[in-house]
Protein backbone atom coordinates (compact mmCIF):
# COMPACT_ATOMS: atom_id res chain seq x y z
CA UNK A 1 0.00 0.00 0.00
CA UNK A 2 2.82 2.35 1.00
CA UNK A 3 4.62 1.75 -2.29
CA UNK A 4 1.38 2.52 -4.18
CA UNK A 5 0.93 5.87 -2.37
CA UNK A 6 4.58 6.78 -2.95
CA UNK A 7 4.32 6.54 -6.71
CA UNK A 8 5.12 9.76 -8.52
CA UNK A 9 2.22 9.09 -10.92
CA UNK A 10 -0.17 10.31 -8.22
CA UNK A 11 1.55 13.73 -8.04
CA UNK A 12 1.70 13.91 -11.85
CA UNK A 13 -2.02 13.07 -12.06
CA UNK A 14 -2.89 15.80 -9.54
CA UNK A 15 -0.73 18.37 -11.39
CA UNK A 16 -2.26 17.40 -14.76
CA UNK A 17 -5.78 17.59 -13.36
CA UNK A 18 -5.25 21.06 -11.83
CA UNK A 19 -3.30 22.45 -14.81
CA UNK A 20 -5.86 21.14 -17.31
CA UNK A 21 -8.91 22.64 -15.61
CA UNK A 22 -7.25 25.96 -14.81
CA UNK A 23 -6.01 26.28 -18.41
CA UNK A 24 -9.20 24.98 -20.04
CA UNK A 25 -11.40 27.32 -18.00
CA UNK A 26 -9.40 30.26 -19.34
CA UNK A 27 -9.37 29.02 -22.91
CA UNK A 28 -12.97 27.76 -23.23
CA UNK A 29 -16.23 28.81 -21.56
CA UNK A 30 -18.13 25.85 -20.06
CA UNK A 31 -19.87 25.53 -16.66
CA UNK A 32 -18.11 22.29 -15.70
CA UNK A 33 -14.70 23.81 -16.45
CA UNK A 34 -15.56 26.93 -14.46
CA UNK A 35 -16.88 25.02 -11.43
CA UNK A 36 -13.93 22.63 -11.28
CA UNK A 37 -11.42 25.44 -11.80
CA UNK A 38 -13.03 27.46 -8.98
CA UNK A 39 -12.89 24.44 -6.67
CA UNK A 40 -9.22 23.79 -7.51
CA UNK A 41 -8.18 27.40 -7.03
CA UNK A 42 -10.04 27.78 -3.73
CA UNK A 43 -8.13 24.80 -2.39
CA UNK A 44 -4.89 26.25 -3.77
CA UNK A 45 -5.43 29.48 -1.82
CA UNK A 46 -5.92 27.60 1.44
CA UNK A 47 -2.86 25.43 0.78
CA UNK A 48 -0.81 28.60 0.04
CA UNK A 49 -1.76 29.97 3.44
CA UNK A 50 -0.81 26.73 5.20
CA UNK A 51 2.61 26.71 3.48
CA UNK A 52 3.38 29.93 5.40
CA UNK A 53 2.67 28.15 8.68
CA UNK A 54 4.89 25.26 7.57
CA UNK A 55 7.64 27.79 6.73
CA UNK A 56 7.35 29.24 10.24
CA UNK A 57 7.60 25.85 11.93
CA UNK A 58 10.45 24.85 9.64
CA UNK A 59 12.33 28.03 10.55
CA UNK A 60 11.88 27.31 14.28
CA UNK A 61 13.21 23.77 13.92
CA UNK A 62 16.13 24.78 11.74
CA UNK A 63 17.20 27.71 13.91
CA UNK A 64 16.93 25.64 17.11
CA UNK A 65 19.17 22.95 15.59
CA UNK A 66 21.68 25.55 14.45
CA UNK A 67 21.78 27.13 17.91
CA UNK A 68 22.42 23.71 19.46
CA UNK A 69 25.20 23.01 16.97
CA UNK A 70 26.76 26.42 17.47
CA UNK A 71 26.76 26.12 21.25
CA UNK A 72 28.00 22.54 21.40
CA UNK A 73 30.52 22.39 18.54
CA UNK A 74 31.58 26.03 18.15
CA UNK A 75 31.46 28.06 14.96
CA UNK A 76 34.78 27.43 13.25
CA UNK A 77 37.24 29.99 11.90
CA UNK A 78 35.07 31.38 9.09
CA UNK A 79 31.88 32.04 10.96
CA UNK A 80 30.62 35.44 12.04
CA UNK A 81 32.04 37.80 14.59
CA UNK A 82 34.62 36.94 17.20
CA UNK A 83 32.55 38.72 19.86
CA UNK A 84 29.41 36.59 19.64
CA UNK A 85 28.86 33.17 18.14
CA UNK A 86 26.45 32.26 15.37
CA UNK A 87 23.98 31.11 18.03
CA UNK A 88 23.25 34.79 18.78
CA UNK A 89 22.08 35.49 15.23
CA UNK A 90 19.99 32.33 14.91
CA UNK A 91 18.52 33.10 18.30
CA UNK A 92 17.62 36.59 17.10
CA UNK A 93 15.67 35.17 14.14
CA UNK A 94 13.96 32.62 16.38
CA UNK A 95 12.93 35.12 19.06
CA UNK A 96 11.81 37.74 16.52
CA UNK A 97 9.61 35.32 14.57
CA UNK A 98 8.06 33.70 17.65
CA UNK A 99 7.42 37.06 19.32
CA UNK A 100 5.79 38.48 16.20
CA UNK A 101 3.50 35.47 15.80
CA UNK A 102 2.65 35.43 19.51
CA UNK A 103 1.73 39.12 19.60
CA UNK A 104 -0.12 38.94 16.28
CA UNK A 105 -2.23 35.93 17.12
CA UNK A 106 -3.05 36.80 20.72
CA UNK A 107 -3.59 40.55 20.42
CA UNK A 108 -4.38 40.89 16.71
CA UNK A 109 -2.77 42.82 13.87
CA UNK A 110 -4.63 46.02 14.75
CA UNK A 111 -3.45 46.02 18.37
CA UNK A 112 -1.06 48.75 19.55
CA UNK A 113 1.92 46.45 20.30
CA UNK A 114 1.73 44.81 16.87
CA UNK A 115 1.32 48.12 15.06
CA UNK A 116 4.29 49.50 17.00
CA UNK A 117 6.47 46.56 15.91
CA UNK A 118 5.23 46.86 12.36
CA UNK A 119 5.71 50.63 12.07
CA UNK A 120 9.00 51.09 13.91
CA UNK A 121 10.77 47.81 13.20
CA UNK A 122 9.45 46.00 10.17
CA UNK A 123 8.46 48.81 7.83
CA UNK A 124 11.66 50.80 8.16
CA UNK A 125 13.92 47.76 8.13
CA UNK A 126 12.28 46.55 4.93
CA UNK A 127 12.94 49.85 3.18
CA UNK A 128 16.44 50.26 4.61
CA UNK A 129 17.60 46.77 3.66
CA UNK A 130 16.10 47.02 0.16
CA UNK A 131 17.61 50.47 -0.37
CA UNK A 132 21.13 49.77 0.79
CA UNK A 133 21.56 47.57 -2.27
CA UNK A 134 21.36 50.86 -4.17
CA UNK A 135 24.63 51.87 -2.56
CA UNK A 136 26.24 48.70 -3.89
CA UNK A 137 24.91 49.52 -7.37
CA UNK A 138 26.91 52.73 -7.19
CA UNK A 139 30.13 50.95 -6.30
CA UNK A 140 29.53 48.30 -8.95
CA UNK A 141 28.62 50.87 -11.61
CA UNK A 142 31.75 52.89 -10.89
CA UNK A 143 33.98 49.81 -11.24
CA UNK A 144 32.21 47.97 -14.04
CA UNK A 145 30.63 50.61 -16.27
CA UNK A 146 33.47 51.01 -18.71
CA UNK A 147 32.77 51.53 -22.42
CA UNK A 148 35.39 49.03 -23.60
CA UNK A 149 33.17 47.39 -26.21
CA UNK A 150 30.25 48.57 -28.34
CA UNK A 151 27.77 46.61 -26.22
CA UNK A 152 29.11 48.15 -23.00
CA UNK A 153 28.95 51.62 -24.54
CA UNK A 154 25.31 51.12 -25.58
CA UNK A 155 24.39 49.86 -22.11
CA UNK A 156 26.15 52.81 -20.49
CA UNK A 157 24.56 55.43 -22.75
CA UNK A 158 21.04 54.02 -22.36
CA UNK A 159 21.38 53.62 -18.59
CA UNK A 160 22.72 57.12 -18.02
CA UNK A 161 20.17 58.72 -20.37
CA UNK A 162 17.24 56.98 -18.67
CA UNK A 163 18.52 58.03 -15.25
CA UNK A 164 18.65 61.62 -16.46
CA UNK A 165 15.19 61.30 -18.02
CA UNK A 166 13.36 59.99 -15.00
CA UNK A 167 14.32 62.81 -12.68
CA UNK A 168 13.93 66.57 -13.24
CA UNK A 169 17.69 67.21 -12.90
CA UNK A 170 18.23 65.78 -16.37
CA UNK A 171 15.81 68.23 -17.95
CA UNK A 172 17.42 71.06 -16.00
CA UNK A 173 20.84 70.14 -17.44
CA UNK A 174 19.62 69.78 -21.07
CA UNK A 175 16.08 69.69 -22.45
CA UNK A 176 17.04 66.99 -24.95
CA UNK A 177 17.63 64.30 -22.28
CA UNK A 178 13.91 63.58 -21.69
CA UNK A 179 13.31 63.36 -25.45
CA UNK A 180 16.14 60.89 -26.04
CA UNK A 181 15.46 58.99 -22.83
CA UNK A 182 11.75 58.64 -23.60
CA UNK A 183 12.66 57.39 -27.06
CA UNK A 184 14.88 54.70 -25.55
CA UNK A 185 12.19 53.83 -22.97
CA UNK A 186 9.16 53.84 -25.30
CA UNK A 187 10.61 52.48 -28.51
CA UNK A 188 14.15 51.18 -28.77
CA UNK A 189 14.19 48.89 -25.72
CA UNK A 190 10.65 47.58 -26.06
CA UNK A 191 11.22 45.37 -29.09
CA UNK A 192 14.12 43.50 -27.50
CA UNK A 193 12.20 43.24 -24.24
CA UNK A 194 9.26 41.67 -26.04
CA UNK A 195 11.57 39.36 -27.99
CA UNK A 196 13.16 38.20 -24.77
CA UNK A 197 9.66 37.83 -23.32
CA UNK A 198 8.63 35.65 -26.27
CA UNK A 199 11.66 33.41 -25.77
CA UNK A 200 10.98 33.19 -22.03
CA UNK A 201 7.29 32.40 -22.71
CA UNK A 202 8.33 29.46 -24.87
CA UNK A 203 10.74 28.35 -22.15
CA UNK A 204 8.06 28.73 -19.49
CA UNK A 205 5.60 26.60 -21.44
CA UNK A 206 8.27 23.94 -22.02
CA UNK A 207 9.25 23.91 -18.34
CA UNK A 208 5.59 23.81 -17.24
CA UNK A 209 4.96 20.80 -19.46
CA UNK A 210 8.08 19.10 -18.10
CA UNK A 211 6.97 19.73 -14.51
CA UNK A 212 3.41 18.55 -15.15
CA UNK A 213 4.58 15.37 -16.89
CA UNK A 214 7.00 14.61 -14.06
CA UNK A 215 10.28 15.02 -15.90
CA UNK A 216 11.48 17.52 -13.25
CA UNK A 217 12.48 15.01 -10.61
CA UNK A 218 12.97 17.60 -7.87
CA UNK A 219 9.25 18.46 -8.06
CA UNK A 220 7.57 15.10 -8.65
CA UNK A 221 9.82 12.99 -6.46
CA UNK A 222 11.20 15.54 -4.00
CA UNK A 223 11.88 14.39 -0.50
CA UNK A 224 13.16 10.95 -1.48
Amino acid at each position, binding site marked *: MSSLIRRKEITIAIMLFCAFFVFADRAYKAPILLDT*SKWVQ*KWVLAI*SAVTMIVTFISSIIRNTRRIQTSLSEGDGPDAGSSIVGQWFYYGTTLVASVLTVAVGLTMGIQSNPYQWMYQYVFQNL*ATAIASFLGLFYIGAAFRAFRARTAEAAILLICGVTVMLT*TNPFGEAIWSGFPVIGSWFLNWVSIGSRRGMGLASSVGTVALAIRVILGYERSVSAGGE
Partner: protein
Amino acid sequence: MSSIIDKFENLDRRILLWAVVICVTLPYFIPVGLPIPYEPWVLDAIDFMENEVPDGATVLLDLSAALRVITELEGGMQATGWYFTQRGFKVVGTCFYPDGVFEWYNFIEPEFIKAGYVYGEDYVFLGYIPGESTGVDRLAKSIRDLISVDYEGNKIEDLPMMADIDKAEDFAFVMAFGSGWTPGSYITNWYLPYGIPIIPFSHMYGLSGYLSSWMAGFIPGTICGVRGSGEWANYLGLPSTAVTMLDSVGLGHAIMILFIILGNIAMLIEKYGGKDTESIGGSP
Protein backbone atom coordinates in the same frame (compact mmCIF):
# COMPACT_ATOMS: atom_id res chain seq x y z
CA MET B 1 49.33 61.94 -14.20
CA SER B 2 49.04 58.15 -14.43
CA SER B 3 49.51 57.84 -10.65
CA ILE B 4 46.51 60.16 -10.15
CA ILE B 5 44.51 58.03 -12.56
CA ASP B 6 45.62 54.84 -10.78
CA LYS B 7 44.60 56.30 -7.43
CA PHE B 8 41.24 57.31 -8.88
CA GLU B 9 40.70 53.84 -10.37
CA ASN B 10 41.54 52.24 -7.02
CA LEU B 11 39.41 54.66 -5.01
CA ASP B 12 37.94 53.15 -1.85
CA ARG B 13 34.28 52.47 -2.53
CA ARG B 14 33.32 53.96 0.83
CA ILE B 15 34.46 57.45 -0.25
CA LEU B 16 32.09 57.29 -3.20
CA LEU B 17 29.24 56.02 -1.00
CA TRP B 18 29.73 58.79 1.57
CA ALA B 19 29.70 61.35 -1.25
CA VAL B 20 26.36 59.93 -2.41
CA VAL B 21 24.93 59.92 1.12
CA ILE B 22 25.84 63.59 1.57
CA CYS B 23 24.36 64.54 -1.82
CA VAL B 24 21.14 62.64 -1.10
CA THR B 25 20.79 64.24 2.35
CA LEU B 26 21.54 67.87 1.36
CA PRO B 27 18.26 68.68 -0.47
CA TYR B 28 16.31 67.93 2.71
CA PHE B 29 18.04 70.93 4.28
CA ILE B 30 18.50 73.07 1.15
CA PRO B 31 15.54 72.30 -1.16
CA VAL B 32 16.13 72.92 -4.86
CA GLY B 33 12.48 72.68 -5.95
CA LEU B 34 12.86 71.80 -9.63
CA PRO B 35 9.51 71.65 -11.49
CA ILE B 36 8.24 68.19 -12.40
CA PRO B 37 6.98 68.01 -16.00
CA TYR B 38 4.18 65.51 -16.69
CA GLU B 39 5.04 62.33 -18.53
CA PRO B 40 2.65 61.24 -21.31
CA TRP B 41 1.77 57.87 -19.71
CA VAL B 42 0.76 59.62 -16.49
CA LEU B 43 -1.32 62.18 -18.40
CA ASP B 44 -3.09 59.37 -20.25
CA ALA B 45 -3.91 57.60 -16.98
CA ILE B 46 -5.29 60.83 -15.50
CA ASP B 47 -7.22 61.58 -18.70
CA PHE B 48 -8.83 58.13 -18.55
CA MET B 49 -9.94 58.54 -14.93
CA GLU B 50 -11.23 62.08 -15.49
CA ASN B 51 -13.06 61.59 -18.77
CA GLU B 52 -13.97 57.94 -19.16
CA VAL B 53 -14.99 56.90 -15.66
CA PRO B 54 -18.31 58.34 -14.43
CA ASP B 55 -18.78 59.70 -10.91
CA GLY B 56 -19.93 57.07 -8.44
CA ALA B 57 -18.38 54.18 -10.38
CA THR B 58 -17.23 51.02 -8.61
CA VAL B 59 -13.47 50.62 -8.50
CA LEU B 60 -11.18 47.83 -7.33
CA LEU B 61 -8.18 49.15 -5.41
CA ASP B 62 -5.40 46.61 -5.05
CA LEU B 63 -2.62 47.41 -2.58
CA SER B 64 -0.02 44.76 -3.34
CA ALA B 65 3.04 46.92 -2.90
CA ALA B 66 5.77 45.52 -0.67
CA LEU B 67 6.88 47.71 2.21
CA ARG B 68 10.25 48.38 0.63
CA VAL B 69 8.61 50.57 -2.05
CA ILE B 70 6.35 52.46 0.32
CA THR B 71 8.46 55.62 0.16
CA GLU B 72 7.80 55.77 -3.59
CA LEU B 73 4.10 55.11 -3.42
CA GLU B 74 2.71 56.45 -0.14
CA GLY B 75 2.08 59.93 -1.56
CA GLY B 76 0.34 58.36 -4.53
CA MET B 77 -1.79 56.14 -2.28
CA GLN B 78 -3.00 59.09 -0.22
CA ALA B 79 -3.69 61.12 -3.36
CA THR B 80 -5.65 58.18 -4.83
CA GLY B 81 -7.74 57.78 -1.68
CA TRP B 82 -8.57 61.49 -1.70
CA TYR B 83 -9.38 61.51 -5.45
CA PHE B 84 -11.72 58.53 -5.16
CA THR B 85 -13.73 60.33 -2.47
CA GLN B 86 -13.95 63.50 -4.57
CA ARG B 87 -15.42 61.48 -7.46
CA GLY B 88 -17.74 59.49 -5.18
CA PHE B 89 -16.28 56.16 -6.30
CA LYS B 90 -17.41 53.01 -4.49
CA VAL B 91 -14.20 51.25 -3.57
CA VAL B 92 -13.48 47.57 -2.98
CA GLY B 93 -10.00 47.19 -1.51
CA THR B 94 -7.85 44.09 -1.50
CA CYS B 95 -4.21 43.01 -1.40
CA PHE B 96 -2.15 40.02 -2.45
CA TYR B 97 0.78 41.02 -0.24
CA PRO B 98 0.42 41.00 3.56
CA ASP B 99 1.82 44.57 3.65
CA GLY B 100 -1.27 45.82 1.86
CA VAL B 101 -3.24 45.65 5.11
CA PHE B 102 -0.91 48.23 6.67
CA GLU B 103 -1.12 50.39 3.53
CA TRP B 104 -4.92 50.34 3.58
CA TYR B 105 -5.26 51.37 7.21
CA ASN B 106 -2.51 54.01 7.10
CA PHE B 107 -2.90 55.67 3.72
CA ILE B 108 -6.30 54.87 2.19
CA GLU B 109 -8.91 54.49 4.93
CA PRO B 110 -8.02 57.78 6.70
CA GLU B 111 -8.93 59.63 3.47
CA PHE B 112 -12.27 57.80 3.31
CA ILE B 113 -13.06 58.55 6.94
CA LYS B 114 -12.19 62.26 6.44
CA ALA B 115 -14.57 62.38 3.48
CA GLY B 116 -17.40 60.86 5.51
CA TYR B 117 -17.43 57.52 3.71
CA VAL B 118 -19.37 54.75 5.48
CA TYR B 119 -17.91 51.25 5.65
CA GLY B 120 -20.08 48.72 3.89
CA GLU B 121 -21.93 51.38 1.89
CA ASP B 122 -19.13 53.35 0.23
CA TYR B 123 -16.09 51.13 0.68
CA VAL B 124 -15.19 47.58 1.66
CA PHE B 125 -11.82 46.02 2.44
CA LEU B 126 -11.53 42.34 1.56
CA GLY B 127 -8.10 42.01 3.16
CA TYR B 128 -5.14 39.83 2.24
CA ILE B 129 -5.73 37.04 -0.27
CA PRO B 130 -2.89 34.54 -0.71
CA GLY B 131 -2.22 32.66 -3.92
CA GLU B 132 -0.80 35.36 -6.19
CA SER B 133 -1.96 34.93 -9.82
CA THR B 134 -4.46 32.26 -8.80
CA GLY B 135 -6.09 34.69 -6.41
CA VAL B 136 -6.28 37.46 -9.04
CA ASP B 137 -7.84 35.05 -11.52
CA ARG B 138 -10.37 33.77 -8.97
CA LEU B 139 -11.27 37.29 -7.87
CA ALA B 140 -12.24 38.09 -11.47
CA LYS B 141 -14.62 35.13 -11.60
CA SER B 142 -16.40 35.51 -8.27
CA ILE B 143 -15.54 37.35 -5.06
CA ARG B 144 -18.06 35.34 -3.02
CA ASP B 145 -16.64 32.03 -4.17
CA LEU B 146 -13.17 33.17 -3.19
CA ILE B 147 -13.78 34.63 0.25
CA SER B 148 -16.81 34.59 2.51
CA VAL B 149 -15.96 37.42 4.92
CA ASP B 150 -14.20 40.75 4.59
CA TYR B 151 -11.15 41.79 6.61
CA GLU B 152 -13.34 43.07 9.45
CA GLY B 153 -15.09 39.69 9.72
CA ASN B 154 -18.41 40.79 8.13
CA LYS B 155 -20.08 38.38 5.73
CA ILE B 156 -19.80 39.63 2.16
CA GLU B 157 -23.54 39.18 1.50
CA ASP B 158 -24.36 41.34 4.57
CA LEU B 159 -22.57 44.39 3.16
CA PRO B 160 -25.03 46.66 1.29
CA MET B 161 -22.42 47.80 -1.25
CA MET B 162 -21.59 44.24 -2.28
CA ALA B 163 -25.15 43.34 -3.29
CA ASP B 164 -24.42 43.99 -6.99
CA ILE B 165 -20.68 43.37 -6.96
CA ASP B 166 -19.24 39.92 -7.41
CA LYS B 167 -17.04 39.66 -10.51
CA ALA B 168 -14.72 41.59 -12.80
CA GLU B 169 -17.46 42.98 -15.05
CA ASP B 170 -19.02 44.78 -12.07
CA PHE B 171 -16.02 47.13 -11.83
CA ALA B 172 -15.31 50.25 -13.93
CA PHE B 173 -11.54 49.87 -13.62
CA VAL B 174 -8.78 48.55 -11.38
CA MET B 175 -6.11 50.71 -9.74
CA ALA B 176 -3.35 48.23 -8.97
CA PHE B 177 -0.52 49.28 -6.67
CA GLY B 178 2.27 46.77 -6.98
CA SER B 179 5.97 46.19 -6.46
CA GLY B 180 6.25 43.16 -8.73
CA TRP B 181 3.91 40.93 -10.65
CA THR B 182 0.44 42.05 -9.47
CA PRO B 183 -0.51 44.77 -11.96
CA GLY B 184 0.72 42.54 -14.79
CA SER B 185 -1.41 39.73 -13.42
CA TYR B 186 -4.45 42.00 -13.55
CA ILE B 187 -3.72 42.77 -17.22
CA THR B 188 -3.62 39.03 -17.97
CA ASN B 189 -6.59 37.99 -15.82
CA TRP B 190 -8.88 41.04 -15.85
CA TYR B 191 -8.16 43.06 -19.00
CA LEU B 192 -7.47 40.37 -21.59
CA PRO B 193 -10.52 38.17 -20.83
CA TYR B 194 -13.02 40.79 -19.57
CA GLY B 195 -11.80 44.12 -20.95
CA ILE B 196 -11.61 45.83 -17.54
CA PRO B 197 -9.14 48.75 -17.74
CA ILE B 198 -6.15 48.50 -15.42
CA ILE B 199 -4.02 51.39 -14.18
CA PRO B 200 -0.74 50.00 -12.78
CA PHE B 201 0.75 52.14 -10.02
CA SER B 202 4.15 50.61 -9.60
CA HIS B 203 7.65 51.41 -8.41
CA MET B 204 10.12 52.86 -10.88
CA TYR B 205 11.53 49.53 -11.97
CA GLY B 206 8.14 48.47 -13.30
CA LEU B 207 7.97 51.44 -15.68
CA SER B 208 9.79 49.86 -18.63
CA GLY B 209 7.49 46.81 -18.46
CA TYR B 210 4.22 48.75 -18.23
CA LEU B 211 5.30 51.16 -20.95
CA SER B 212 5.21 48.32 -23.46
CA SER B 213 1.63 47.52 -22.34
CA TRP B 214 0.75 51.21 -22.66
CA MET B 215 2.30 51.44 -26.13
CA ALA B 216 0.39 48.32 -27.19
CA GLY B 217 -2.88 49.82 -25.92
CA PHE B 218 -3.48 47.26 -23.16
CA ILE B 219 -3.61 49.87 -20.41
CA PRO B 220 -4.89 53.46 -20.59
CA GLY B 221 -1.80 54.75 -18.76
CA THR B 222 0.48 54.06 -15.84
CA ILE B 223 1.85 55.95 -12.85
CA CYS B 224 5.24 54.74 -11.67
CA GLY B 225 7.64 55.64 -8.93
CA VAL B 226 8.03 58.71 -6.81
CA ARG B 227 7.93 60.89 -9.91
CA GLY B 228 4.56 59.48 -10.93
CA SER B 229 3.26 59.91 -7.37
CA GLY B 230 4.49 63.51 -7.42
CA GLU B 231 2.88 64.24 -10.78
CA TRP B 232 -0.42 62.69 -9.62
CA ALA B 233 -0.40 64.67 -6.36
CA ASN B 234 0.61 67.88 -8.21
CA TYR B 235 -2.25 67.45 -10.67
CA LEU B 236 -4.72 67.06 -7.80
CA GLY B 237 -3.23 70.11 -6.07
CA LEU B 238 -2.21 68.11 -3.02
CA PRO B 239 1.01 68.66 -1.05
CA SER B 240 3.62 66.04 -1.85
CA THR B 241 7.04 65.12 -0.52
CA ALA B 242 7.90 63.87 -3.99
CA VAL B 243 9.50 67.17 -5.02
CA THR B 244 12.13 67.11 -2.25
CA MET B 245 12.63 63.39 -2.74
CA LEU B 246 13.20 63.86 -6.47
CA ASP B 247 15.75 66.63 -5.78
CA SER B 248 17.53 64.26 -3.42
CA VAL B 249 17.44 61.35 -5.88
CA GLY B 250 18.51 63.60 -8.75
CA LEU B 251 21.56 64.86 -6.89
CA GLY B 252 22.53 61.31 -5.95
CA HIS B 253 22.20 60.27 -9.58
CA ALA B 254 24.29 63.26 -10.67
CA ILE B 255 27.19 62.22 -8.40
CA MET B 256 26.96 58.62 -9.58
CA ILE B 257 26.96 59.65 -13.25
CA LEU B 258 29.86 62.01 -12.61
CA PHE B 259 31.97 59.20 -11.13
CA ILE B 260 31.04 56.87 -14.01
CA ILE B 261 32.05 59.50 -16.57
CA LEU B 262 35.31 60.22 -14.74
CA GLY B 263 36.04 56.49 -14.58
CA ASN B 264 35.50 56.18 -18.33
CA ILE B 265 37.69 59.21 -19.05
CA ALA B 266 40.42 57.62 -16.91
CA MET B 267 40.02 54.38 -18.85
CA LEU B 268 40.27 56.17 -22.19
CA ILE B 269 43.38 58.08 -21.08
CA GLU B 270 44.95 54.80 -19.99
CA LYS B 271 43.89 53.04 -23.20
CA TYR B 272 45.16 55.66 -25.62
CA GLY B 273 48.14 56.40 -23.39
CA GLY B 274 49.35 52.85 -24.19
CA LYS B 275 48.81 51.13 -20.79
CA ASP B 276 47.42 47.58 -20.60
CA THR B 277 43.68 47.95 -20.05
CA GLU B 278 43.40 44.50 -18.42
CA SER B 279 44.97 45.88 -15.28
CA ILE B 280 42.26 48.55 -15.00
CA GLY B 281 39.46 47.84 -12.61
CA GLY B 282 40.82 48.42 -9.17
CA SER B 283 40.17 46.46 -6.03
CA PRO B 284 36.69 45.17 -5.39
